């Protein structure tokens, strides 16, 4: 908006008022403000510009929403027209996009006789300071009670399942750890058994270091590699096929490592002559 220097004022009146105010012992900043106001007023009087008068209607429409005609001794009005059309709650890019209000319909209330036709500037928001929220209204429902109820029920079902399962199935606890006695087979937790299975086929550096690193990096890179914007399964045949294959590959390896590996990590059939499963959770 316009700086104070741009407002024309009577320098002589300014200096005189300043002197008087300072003489009265007023704070310098306050004195300056008062002197400036007096200077502007004197200038207006001398040049026939009516004091505190609203701008004509067409000029006002150039200062949208936060129109500031009249207020602040007219300075803001002059400034508001130069505002990069980013006034409060209205972020049209460029001055060209100024909206003109449609003509009022129905009964237009008459202003009170004698009421000053003035507006005050509340705030000025730069266009880049406004985040435009673009989302379609769509079909929306209340989180309370619908979603919360659903979440609560799923939480109860999960708790019930876990409590019942834990009541009847004990978590394994074998004998005290003994670093000198290697159990046969010794297996990693189930989610690493796919990797342990891979170890049978590849050098440990490949199965144990390179493959896990590739999985981590590859997974993270998924959204940056797959640039297809569609979420429709029909448009994503390749992505879905690849992911399903990899997921299944991991699942098959994990199952193989869990259920089909017996003593010395050799292949066994779980329904074969071995009476126990070589697998503990």
């Amino acid at each position, binding site marked *: 908006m316009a700086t104070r220097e741009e407002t024309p004022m009577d320098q002589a009146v300014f200096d005189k008022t300043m002197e008087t105010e300072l003489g009265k012992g007023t704070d310098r900043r306050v004195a300056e403000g008062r002197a400036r106001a007096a200077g502007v007023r004197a200038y207006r009087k001398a040049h026939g510009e009516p004091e505190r008068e609203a701008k004509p209607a067409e000029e006002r429409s150039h200062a949208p929403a936060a129109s500031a005609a009249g207020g602040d001794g007219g300075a803001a009005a002059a400034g508001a027209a130069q505002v990069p059309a980013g006034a409060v709650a209205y972020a049209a890019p460029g001055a060209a996009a100024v909206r003109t209000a449609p003509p009022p319909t129905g009964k237009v209330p008459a202003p009170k006789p004698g009421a000053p036709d003035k507006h005050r500037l509340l705030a000025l928001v730069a266009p880049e300071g406004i985040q435009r929220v673009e989302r379609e209204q769509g079909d929306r429902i209340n989180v309370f009670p619908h*979603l919360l109820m659903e979440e609560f029920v799923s939480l109860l079902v999960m708790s019930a399942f876990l409590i019942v399962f834990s009541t009847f199935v004990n978590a394994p606890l074998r004998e005290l750890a003994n670093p000198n006695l290697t159990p046969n087979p*010794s297996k990693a937790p189930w989610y690493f058994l796919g990797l342990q299975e891979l170890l049978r086929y590849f050098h440990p550096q490949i199965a144990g270091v390179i493959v896990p690193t590739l999985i981590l990096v590859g997974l993270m890179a998924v959204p940056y590699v*797959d640039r297809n914007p569609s*979420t429709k399964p029909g448009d994503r045949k390749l992505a879905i096929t690849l992911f399903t294959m990899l997921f299944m590959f991991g699942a098959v390896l994990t199952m193989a490592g869990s259920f089909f590996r017996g003593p010395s990590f050799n292949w066994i059939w779980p329904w074969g002559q071995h009476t126990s499963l070589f697998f503990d959770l």
Partner: protein
Amino acid sequence: MKLKLPRPNLREAGDKVRETEFWKSVFRPGSIFRRGYKDTQRDRALAMMNNVLYHLHPVKIKRHGLKLTYTFCLGGLSFFLFVLLTITGIYLMFFYRPSADIGAAQAYSDMLQIRNSVFFGDLVRNIHRWGAHLMVFTVSLHMARVFYTGAYKPPREFNWVVGVILLFLTLGLSFTGYLLPWDQLSIWAVQVGTSLAGYSPLIANQVKFILLGGIEVGPETLLRWYVLHVLFLPFILVLFLAVHFWRIRKDGGISGPL
């Protein structure tokens, strides 16, 4: 003669309680516990806005987000399992010492105590163990669901990355917890798992030493993994969870519909 007892006026008493300074300080203006709940659009919105869950959920979501076959509640259930594991884990911490000196492995004897004499110890330990396996499972399935619905596409790319980190943190939490019972199953599983670290390029021995706190699985490993399990990894996980949940809302809530 019939004895007449003064009947307490519950409604009046309730109103009086709601008028107290204390009640007002607990429930924000607009809370349904302050003004009573009527089943209107306004009160449904206010119930959300004056609720701590407002950090996680907006007032309204897309209707298809309610469809069970879209999310299967997998993300929510993973979070719930994390909360459940924290609670059961804290209970177990009261009865467990992570020390495994030769000849006097406190950790293992504490495990036996938890199974045999701690109040509900067996049940709580079972819930913790099965819940942990289940969480690895639900988090993996959650990732698959997000992939199949294409929910990682812009603007949600980064939240997918955070999700992958959360998956690996979950695996880390599960694996570090696996050692704590200090039985034959746990130390040999960890022995097998960490032997792979010995194949990392260039800094193999250093990595293995840092992981184990020694050259092989021993008492130092137990203490190290205990701290990782009960403090360090959950702390990191909670930080990433906060970002994960925040981004869901900032990126426009639930993805879709397909």
